[in-house]
């Protein structure tokens, strides 16, 4: 699905991502690391928001590095950004509709997709006429996930989905990710490693722009470095 080879990128003269090799198949992959390790930059590069300096990004064998964001979105990559990036002055329903309207393979299935999103997040159905900007942080996160699912993605990327959420909602979000695992490839960055290890098959640890570790979820759980730095045991 997604294959990143020897990728360098950064801002100005500062290199943030250094020779990263990375792959997501038909599976659920976690990307862990401390603040400032480059997780969000790596995702921005995949989404065409940051231009790579070197290396390649392939989606199903097609090179996409340097392509524009909307083109990558139309190829079936959906992003749930850390900052949610909703349309605050539009209704929940319109936010969801726009999630599908410009995606060629999704726009004819808008109502089916919306039913599915409503069954995952019933609160969105209740609030469908409310402005997105007036909802709580947790509800906005659910809407951002719902909007991404509207596009019938083949690869769903979530950037820190649990950030700033209360524990009950974090658990709900990861339950949804587990449920989605069988139908879509997932890439999730997290600082909340403990929760996310339950929802993923495999994970990478990114530190100072380099991949320092790659293992299955089980392997990461027992890795001394992960236990010491990320699980806090």
């Amino acid at each position, binding site marked *: 699905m997604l294959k990143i080879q020897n990728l360098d990128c950064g801002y100005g003269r500062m290199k943030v991502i250094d020779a990263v090799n990375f792959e997501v198949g038909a599976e659920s992959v976690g990307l862990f690391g401390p603040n400032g390790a480059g997780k969000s930059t790596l995702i921005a590069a995949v989404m065409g928001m940051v231009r790579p300096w070197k290396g390649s990004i392939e989606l199903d064998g097609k090179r996409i590095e340097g392509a524009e964001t909307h083109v990558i979105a*139309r190829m079936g990559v959906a992003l749930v950004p850390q900052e949610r990036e909703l349309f605050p002055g539009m209704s929940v329903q319109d936010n969801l509709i*726009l999630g599908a*309207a410009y995606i060629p393979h999704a726009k004819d299935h808008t109502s089916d997709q919306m039913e599915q999103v409503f069954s995952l997040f019933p609160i969105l159905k209740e609030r469908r006429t409310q402005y997105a900007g007036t909802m709580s942080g947790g509800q906005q996160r659910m809407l951002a996930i719902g*909007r991404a699912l509207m596009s019938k993605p083949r690869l769903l990327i979530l950037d820190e989905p649990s950030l700033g959420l209360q524990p009950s909602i974090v658990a709900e979000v990861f339950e949804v990710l587990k449920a989605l695992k069988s139908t879509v490839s997932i890439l999730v960055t997290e600082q909340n490693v403990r929760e996310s290890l339950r929802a993923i098959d495999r994970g990478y640890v990114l530190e100072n722009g380099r991949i320092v570790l790659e293992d299955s979820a089980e392997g990461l759980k027992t890795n001394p470095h992960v236990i010491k730095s990320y699980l806090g045991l």
Partner: protein
Amino acid sequence: MVMKRRTAIIAALSIAAAVVLILWKPTVLIYGLQAAGLYAAVAIPMGLVLGIVHIVNLAHGEFMMVAAYAAYFGCKALGMDPLLAIIPTAIVTAVFGWVIFQLTIRRALKAPELNQLILTFGLAIAFTQTINLIFTSQTYKIPLDYVSASMDIGDLTFGVWSFVFVAVAIIFAYGVKFFLTKTMTGKAAVAVGQNPRGAAIVGIDVYRTYGLVFALALALVGAMGALFLTKSAIFPSVGSPFTMKSFCLIAMAGIGNIPGILGASVLLGVSENFLRAFRPTRDWAEIVFFVLIIAVILARSLKGRKS
């Protein structure tokens, strides 16, 4: 509830003011409304661009001036009435606007706001001076019979043609609102205006949307250019007061509030004509919009401080 009470108070005051004016100085109300129609119809496209592309287009009135010149010479060459030129001028102006957008404004979208202001201000000067060089500062006008149509009510006689601007302003305001809320392209444009990053990640081509909205706004400006020609003489600097007044009206209505521009225009048009009705204050009419914009900004900042 608070909003409703305030709206009711404003509505009651406006009706009271209108009744007083009808009994005391009916022409102030009539010509005030006509002027309001013209102001609003010109301001609405600028509001559309500001609300979605987030560019203060200081060449807005000058685009209308260029459109009016195009309509004039088109009409002269073909012996056509300016009313027939409305749609062709709209199309030509939209294409012209789209080209100018792609060549200049698009490149400044990520630049600091001051640079964008300098860019569009430069465009305004370039348009005015280019027209000045080619056609000199001479005025052009197409004489038309129907423009002087008048109506009598009792012993009151007034011109009625300019009411066409009121109709056009209402059509523009609700047409734009319909486009933005009921069509998918319009919703996508609103989405781009509210969050361009969010729009890109759902597959909307942000820059294409900016170009489209700019061209659409310029189509309205072009239509107004042809319509303006029915009533007024044109000369190179005829557009610049419209830039300032449009910006003033948008600031009064609040960015993104297209129907609010109608209300702000009525306030501006009626106030101007009210001052014009009395000899000692006649010359003050031109500065009313400054006073209004200062009052509105002051009121907003006081309200902001309270809450």
